[in-house]
């Protein structure tokens, strides 16, 4: 893995790189989206773009504050390191006040022993795997009326749960979901977001010892939806967790999945696919916290962009703590730009606090459609439209294949097709 990682990344992990005063790990590319509120503003602010002077960046991703108390998080300005790419104006006030509207309806389709129930927010399983990392998440945590809890019983084989989460209101709402995979169980849980909503969501995922759990979060919202979702997984000893996020719909989607190792010998795979059309803001910020020795993680997100002001953001934080010896990790983000007028921000961050690791690598590419690919395919008789689709489909297919559910794959393939049909390029 480490060999492949090095070969693929072309950019070595910065082990022991000196920290430069004024520079954040994310470099100096300040997004313009929230700049109007900057005290300096305009070009002056851009020239001095090594991060907002107003806040001191944390030295390590591991130091980011977490709390169940809203008051522990200051009001957002949009210049914070983790919010600087997000257009707060389009967040439906999810960062300003408690979202007290009715949560979208949840319909469950269960098999293989998986159960679903609702419980009070005082249930012991709430707070088992997650803790808010920002104000939006904390506001929703405290506003949620109840928790929907999916349980995969110990030892269950091939269990499945699909939660269809259907929004039908423009009123800001909070939702709390908990997925518990008991020891040595194996299951696939799908969170299927449809309709339209203004939703701030906390999803806790408790992957217990030896369990194998896949969680697939589909954002197939209508165009008006606003969705912030903190999906936090706690992965116990020898457990395996796969997280797949697929974002197609919504006006603004901001996913913050995390995988935290709570015991040695565990494995996490985090995959993502997004397709941003004109005006859409699709943001994915993830964290893999190697806090335990001998764990493995693999991250791959791929995205396509088309249309005026289609904006995607990907930030991948991988933290390998001092005691996480024997870690093997890799993260990559690939973006394919199909038209002019789009913006793709891609920031892989790798922090390594121990040298005793198997491997660690990161890569990020954002590229245009390659005319030579097009010529090659067309020189074989394939018309331009089909050739473009072939390349885009092929590009995105790598993630769809990770879903390992032919029916779901087929459905998402159709979504990709209809997205492509909308392109007139």
């Amino acid at each position, binding site marked *: 893995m480490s060999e492949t990682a090095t070969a693929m990344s072309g950019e070595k992990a910065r082990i022991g790189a000196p920290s430069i005063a004024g520079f954040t790990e994310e470099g100096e590319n300040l997004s313009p989206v929230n700049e109007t509120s900057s005290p300096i503003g305009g070009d002056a602010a851009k020239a001095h773009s090594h991060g907002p002077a107003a806040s001191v960046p944390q030295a390590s991703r591991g130091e980011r504050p977490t709390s169940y108390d809203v008051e522990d998080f200051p009001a957002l300005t949009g210049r914070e390191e983790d919010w600087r790419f997000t257009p707060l104006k389009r967040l439906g006030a999810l960062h300003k006040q408690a979202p007290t509207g009715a949560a979208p309806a949840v319909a469950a389709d269960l098999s293989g022993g998986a159960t679903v129930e609702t419980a009070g927010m005082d249930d012991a399983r709430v707070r088992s795997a997650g803790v808010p990392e920002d104000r939006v998440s904390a506001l929703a945590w405290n506003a949620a009326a109840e928790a929907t809890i999916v349980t995969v019983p110990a030892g269950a084989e091939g269990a499945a749960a699909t939660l269809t989460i259907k929004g039908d209101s423009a009123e800001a709402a909070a939702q709390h979901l908990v997925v518990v995979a008991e020891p040595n169980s194996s299951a696939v849980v799908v969170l299927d977001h449809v309709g339209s909503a203004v939703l701030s969501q906390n999803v806790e995922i408790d992957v217990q010892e030896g369990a194998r759990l896949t969680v697939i979060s589909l954002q197939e919202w209508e165009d008006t939806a606003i969705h912030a979702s903190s999906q936090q997984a706690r992965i116990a000893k020898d457990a395996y967790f796969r997280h797949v996020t697929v974002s197609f719909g919504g006006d603004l989607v901001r996913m913050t999945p995390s995988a935290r190792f709570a015991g040695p010998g565990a494995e996490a795979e985090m995959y993502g696919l997004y397709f941003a059309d004109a005006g859409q803001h699709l943001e994915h910020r993830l964290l893999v916290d190697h806090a335990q020795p001998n764990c493995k993680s693999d991250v791959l997100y791929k995205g396509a962009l088309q249309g005026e002001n289609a904006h995607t953001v990907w930030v991948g934080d991988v933290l390998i703590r001092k005691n996480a010896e024997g870690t093997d990790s890799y993260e990559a983000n690939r973006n394919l730009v199909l038209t002019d007028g789009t913006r793709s921000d891609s920031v892989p961050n790798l922090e390594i606090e121990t040298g005793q690791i198997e491997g660690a690598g990161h890569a990020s590419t954002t590229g245009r459609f*390659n*005319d*030579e*690919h097009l*010529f*090659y*395919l*067309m*020189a*074989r*008789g*394939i*018309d*331009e439209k*089909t*050739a473009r689709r*072939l*390349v885009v*489909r*092929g*590009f*995105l*297919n*790598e993630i769809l294949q990770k879903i390992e559910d032919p029916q779901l794959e087929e459905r998402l393939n159709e979504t990709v097709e209809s997205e492509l049909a909308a392109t007139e390029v």
Partner: protein
Amino acid sequence: MSTLEIKDLHVSIDTEQGTKEILKGVTLTIKTGETHAIMGPNGSGKSTLASTIAGHPRYNVTSGSILLDGEDVLEMGVDERARAGLFLAMQYPVEVPGVTMTNFLRTAKTAIDGEAPSLRHWTKDVKAAMENLKIDADFANRNVNEGFSGGEKKRVEILQMELFKPKFAILDETDSGLDVDALKVVSDGVNRASEQNEMGTLLITHYTRILRYIKPDFVHVFVDGRVAEQGGPELADQLEEEGYDRFLVKA
């Protein structure tokens, strides 16, 4: 029988220093079943001719014509030319990530024939053609040209030529970078296609080596964007002994 006619073809490219004329009046007629070798020193315009026939957007035809059975090829798009029966085996085939060979071959075959090939026959044909060209079976599941060696890419070009059955194939320095064994395998493929499909071949090469395995009916020597001399296979033998110096001095 089909005919590919190239008449007084002038082609230029845009460079940073301005427009540069590369082909300065090329005239050439090929019939199906014939094999023509185009030889010449580097920079004489051989590859430009190949890419222009295929319709690469980098090359601007300023005058002259290319006709396929009387149809104006220059009026056709890149994909239309392929569907009309022209095939370019590229000098540097590109890698197309995310598109498997299987998917690519079937999509192209469907486009060229205007209908999907019968699945059973097609799978068998692909398998047999791959075996003939000594291409490993697992290549079918790999992405187009991705991670293939130079020699493997050339074999895969010939594989496509055998499967798509064009009327005319233009082989742009297919022999370069091949060892002797690979050269034989590739040459066998070309010979099979020209015998079985009555394919016309335009074989572009710098070296005479490949002409030991593929026997040309005609040899054209390119120098400075023009055909400087043409003749039968004996011209190739002469070039092997004398090299291109004679033409370069004259030019």
